[in-house]
Structures are given as structure tokens and as C-alpha cells.
């Protein structure tokens, strides 16, 4: 299949944008989160399909990158991180695997279904891990003093 990176980028951008509108992201940050979602997807595509690394690694690195962008945007726009992170990881979300899993279960192909179930949870876990590791790092290396800090909840 001969599809250029450009069309992938555009499609991931549109997908993130669409879900951003559905989730009612503030208008002035809509384009910023679309960009981070598209970059995250391109990185995932490059790692997992061009370099043929594991899906887990590709998704994890991409989610980490999206979370990194989101942290930066959050400081720039002075808004909570999830405003950028939730639309940004939409293209990475394992919708296809979840759909295939459910369909295989209902059609009675339990082996295939279990394979897709593992894939779904691995990918979701990789996304969650990427986001968590990133916010953990940002909290450890934040420039506020350790002792002064209030009780915080690590996502």
C-alpha cells in the first residue's frame, strides 16, 4: 500500500480534531491538541510498522510523547493536562482490537478473541503507562520545592 506520511498525518489530525469537538475542548486549544495527536500517531506508525518494533513499545513511546506535548501545552495555555491528553491519544486507542475481540467472541472463535483481547489490554496498558510515566517524571522534576508541595495524586 502506497500511502504517504502526509495523508496519514492529515487523517490523524482530522480524527483528533473531530473527537476534540465531541469532547468540547476549548476552541483556542483545539488545533494544538490535534497536532499532538497527529504527531503521536505518526511516531507510533513509524516505530511499529516501519521499524517493526512491538506494538507495546510503539504505542508507549507515542503516548509518552503525546503526554509530553500535553504537559507543555498545559503550561503554555494554563489549563489541565487532560484537556490535551484525552483528544491526543484518540488515534492510538485500540478501537480496532476491541471491536475485533468482541466480534470474535460473539462468533464463537475464542482463540482469536483472546488474542485480540490481549492486544487490546496491552495497547491500553501502554497508553496508560506512557501517560503515567510522563506525569510522574514531570512531578519529580517540577521546579517547585519538594517540602513545600501539597499532597498530590499521581495519575
Amino acid at each position, binding site marked *: 500500500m502506497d500511502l504517504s506520511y502526509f495523508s496519514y498525518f492529515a487523517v490523524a489530525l482530522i480524527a483528533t480534531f*473531530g473527537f476534540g469537538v465531541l469532547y468540547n475542548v476549548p476552541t483556542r486549544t483545539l488545533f494544538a491538541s490535534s497536532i499532538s495527536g497527529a504527531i503521536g500517531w505518526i511516531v507510533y506508525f513509524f516505530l511499529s510498522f516501519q521499524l517493526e518494533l512491538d506494538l507495546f513499545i510503539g504505542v508507549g513511546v507515542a503516548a509518552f510523547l503525546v503526554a509530553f506535548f500535553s504537559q507543555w501545552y498545559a503550561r503554555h495555555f494554563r489549563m489541565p493536562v487532560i484537556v490535551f491528553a484525552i*483528544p491526543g491519544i*484518540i488515534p492510538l486507542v485500540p*478501537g480496532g482490537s476491541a471491536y475485533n475481540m*468482541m466480534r470474535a467472541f460473539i462468533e464463537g472463535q475464542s482463540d482469536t478473541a483472546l488474542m485480540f483481547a490481549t492486544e487490546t489490554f496491552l495497547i491500553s496498558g501502554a497508553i496508560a*503507562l506512557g501517560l*503515567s510515566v510522563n506525569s510522574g517524571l514531570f512531578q519529580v522534576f517540577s521546579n517547585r520545592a519538594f517540602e513545600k508541595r501539597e499532597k498530590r495524586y499521581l*495519575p
Partner: protein
Amino acid sequence: MHKYPVPDILDVCIEAGQVMLENGAETYRVEDTVYRIAKSYNLIYINVFVVPTALILTVQGEDGLDHTELLRMTDRQTNLEKVSMVNDLSRLLAQRALPPAKVKQKLANIRNTPRNFSEWQSNFAIALACGGFPLLFGGGYYDMLPAFIAGGLGHILYQKVNNLTNVSFFAEMVASFFIGLIAVLLTGLGLGEDVNMIIIGSVMSLVPGMAITNSLRDLMAGHLLSGVAVLAKALLTAGAIGIGIAIVLTFI
């Protein structure tokens, strides 16, 4: 610093938590924000417990009496702008504790903020997004137009049925059934190549990928109850979509 009655402060905290929770904030963020607001009014022994369906807050006032308030949550949607606005409000309160009546007014304003986009704009946007997904999942350019049509119509139908019945399982099943039907019809008419790719793209607006990811994040953060609850909801949704699609695919 001026002292306010503890029940008033509790009302403010609970209402802020409610606005956040019903607009799709994660449980840890709701806990964090409610904790901070209570802290900014100089309350002590603050304990917040949040699960997707309830919010409990217990504090001790300076008179030494304990106060508890419980909120039961029913409907949830995603509106990140309101989450962001409540977050700003809690930052404002951390600098200077405003009178509870004033904060209530601000929260009411946040509640009444209209969405940025009309229903048709957001339906169109979601249809565009669904049209893009077949390409991301390895399909071809030919599958994009049918996914656009099926995804948009499916999402509109999902909203209509969900408003009528209020049972999201049923709404998801009906919507995915119609998505499957439209996808099969369109490929039968020669529009689009791969039925699977069209269906996967179109059901992306219903698929609980987001919920599965969020539940794993909750579990990692130690919020075991909400993680498991969200995961159960996600698996039910996946089941509804699977059943709806399977009904169509067994008849072709």
C-alpha cells in the same frame, strides 16, 4: 481571615466536584480539586472519596465537629472546557478564599456555559473523524466515504436513542446494528471495498477505547474501585457493539 459556616463550604466543594465528575474528569483529579478547595478554607481532617457514581466528603471544622456530605452521580458526559474552568476556579480559591455564595454563583455560570459547537457541527466533526479511521487501521482511500456516512449516521442515531431510553447499552447496540447495516448496504452498492474496515472506522465514536485506557490509568493510580467500575462499563459497551454488529454479519 473571615470564617464561613462549614456546611456552606461543603456545598461549594461538592458542587465543584460534581461539575468536574459529570463532565468527564478523572477521579483522582476530582479528589485533588475538592481536597484543595476544602484546604483553602482552612478545614482540617479532609477526606475525599470519589468513584464514578458517588462523591463523599468528610471534614472537620474549627469547632471540632465533623461534617459529611454525599453526592450520588447519575449521568456523565465529556465536556473538557467545564473541567478546565473548575480547575481555574480552584486555583483562584487557593490564592484567596472567596465567600461561598460567590463561588456558587461562579459554579452556576460554569454549569450554564453553552457548548462551543452546535449539535450538527459536532456530528459533522465526528463523521469526519470516523471517515479518517479506516486509513489509520490499514484500509484504503475507498473506505473513507462509506465510513464517513455510516459513522455520522450511527452517532446521530446513538444520541437520539440514548436520549429516548437512557439505557446506553441498548443505544449502543441499536447504533452499531445500523452502522453494520449501512456498511453492508454501501459495499453492496459498490461504495467501499472492505466491510470490516468501514465498520471499525464507523464504530470508533462508540468504542470504549478511551474508557479502557482511563480505567487502566485509574488502576495504576491506586483508585481500584473506579478503575474496575470503568472497566466493567467499557466491557459492557464493547459487548453491546459486538452484538449489534454480529446480528448484521450473521445475515449476510
